[in-house]
């Protein structure tokens, strides 16, 4: 999978009737290197989800160009949406198996279910799960396709702190084991620093580029709260523009 080049001149949601509409994204240039872990950080409502939808190919109504490189039929995309989007009429396991189109991999599912502590719930219908559990199922679903590109839209919201930490570790483990491109949307700066190679800060609507910062903390130090806090303080001092976003 080659680099993702994002070049959006503008993206506008049409207004109702006479209204001029709402300009969501303006002049956004961004390149995401292969196998890079990038966090998109920006205030709520700035258009991060819209951007992800455009990259995922769900929204084609914009001016500009996106090249997702050699996305062939074979390259797989895993997506974690803000809401779990599970099929209510399929059990947890069936929901995960559904996306493993040509390559059933039961072992991988078993392993993921185990790590997420959902093994006992695998034959339950999603309506009986809590929101946090449904989110974990959606995460498993995304990991289960062995994605080449993983798009995640605030995936850890409504998980309790220990679970969130566990899932974060799992995400990093899977990513290190089989490197793939990850685009991770969040408005939690500490989470972003703990995960990413690179932070991309985005402004409030119309969304534009604010700063692009490499996270210099080595991967082994990412569990160190203090290192992350120091990096955060340093960021705030060096880039005052960021302060307004967070």
């Amino acid at each position, binding site marked *: 999978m080659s680099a993702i080049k994002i070049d959006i001149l503008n993206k506008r949601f049409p207004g109702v009737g006479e209204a001029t509409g709402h300009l969501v994204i303006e002049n956004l240039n961004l390149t995401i290197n292969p196998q890079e872990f990038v966090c998109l950080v920006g205030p709520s409502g700035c258009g991060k989800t819209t951007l992800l939808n455009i990259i995922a190919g769900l929204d084609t109504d914009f001016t500009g160009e996106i090249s997702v490189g050699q996305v062939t039929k074979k390259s797989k*995309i895993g997506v974690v949406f803000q809401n779990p*989007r599970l099929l209510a009429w399929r059990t947890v396991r069936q929901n995960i198996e559904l996306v493993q189109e040509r390559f059933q991999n039961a072992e991988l599912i078993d392993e993921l279910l185990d790590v997420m502590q959902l093994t006992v719930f695998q034959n339950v219908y999603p309506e009986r799960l809590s929101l946090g559990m449904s989110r974990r199922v959606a995460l498993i*679903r995304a990991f289960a396709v062995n994605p080449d590109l993983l798009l995640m839209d605030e995936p850890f919201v409504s998980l309790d702190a220990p679970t969130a930490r566990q899932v974060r570790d799992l995400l990093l483990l899977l990513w290190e084991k089989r490197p793939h491109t990850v685009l991770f949307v969040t408005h939690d700066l500490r989470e972003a620093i703990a995960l990413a190679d690179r932070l991309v800060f985005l402004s409030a609507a119309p969304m534009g580029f604010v700063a692009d910062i490499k996270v210099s903390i080595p991967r082994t130090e990412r569990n160190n709260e203090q290192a992350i806090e120091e990096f955060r303080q340093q960021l705030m001092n060096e880039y005052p523009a960021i302060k307004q976003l967070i």
Partner: protein
Amino acid sequence: MLEPSGLKINLNIHKYFLSVLSLLFLLITWQALAVYLDSSTFPMPVLVAKVFWQACVTGQLPYHLGMTLLRLIVSFSIAMLFGCAMGIALGRNRKLDAFFDNWLVIFLNVPALVTIILCYVWFGLVESAAILAVVVNKLPNVIVTIREGTRALDQDLMDMARCYRLSKRKILLEIIWPQLHPFVMGATRSGLALIWKIILVVELLGRSNGMGYQLHLFFQMFDVASILAYTLAFVGVIQLIELLILKPLDQHALRWRR
């Protein structure tokens, strides 16, 4: 105090008892009216039961009911199959929908009798014309119901399916069809009721067997007992379809609901 399960059984018996009681009351009212009116055009329940039994023994009733049922199954299947396909197509494609919307309105509003007469005039008094007449009457209803269902599909799930590049077959079977199920069941129930009514007229006008044909004969002879006997058989069959086919289908499809 009763156990919850005991309470449930008790409630069920209660319900059962009530429905038996209400049927009994209907029979008694009928009997009383028949005695009071003392007319050959309002027979007593016993007479109707006797006629029913005789018609069953001679094989007349099963034969004609069977013919009608056969026509029902064939025309219903054709109408549902094409109706679902067209309904999904119109619900998913706005241009197609805009183009065919007027056609739908026209076909929805052509009186059943008109299509029946036209089919017989154009294609002769043959079986296929009879089936076609029923299908043409039922099809627009199915299309409209399924189209509404398709418009109400969850876009979030469709997006999810597109992201994960699910095959067309999977999208149809796993994502669209389960969401359409309530609409299909609605179309099935309203469709059965509609087809029953139309199919009798079709048989009355141009067939030499089936319930409609028989009822026409009884009408000419003022044989009310036979008319009522056939009607009872009819109601029985509908109840059986509901109980043995539709209810289990519903329960199976909604098993995931809390």
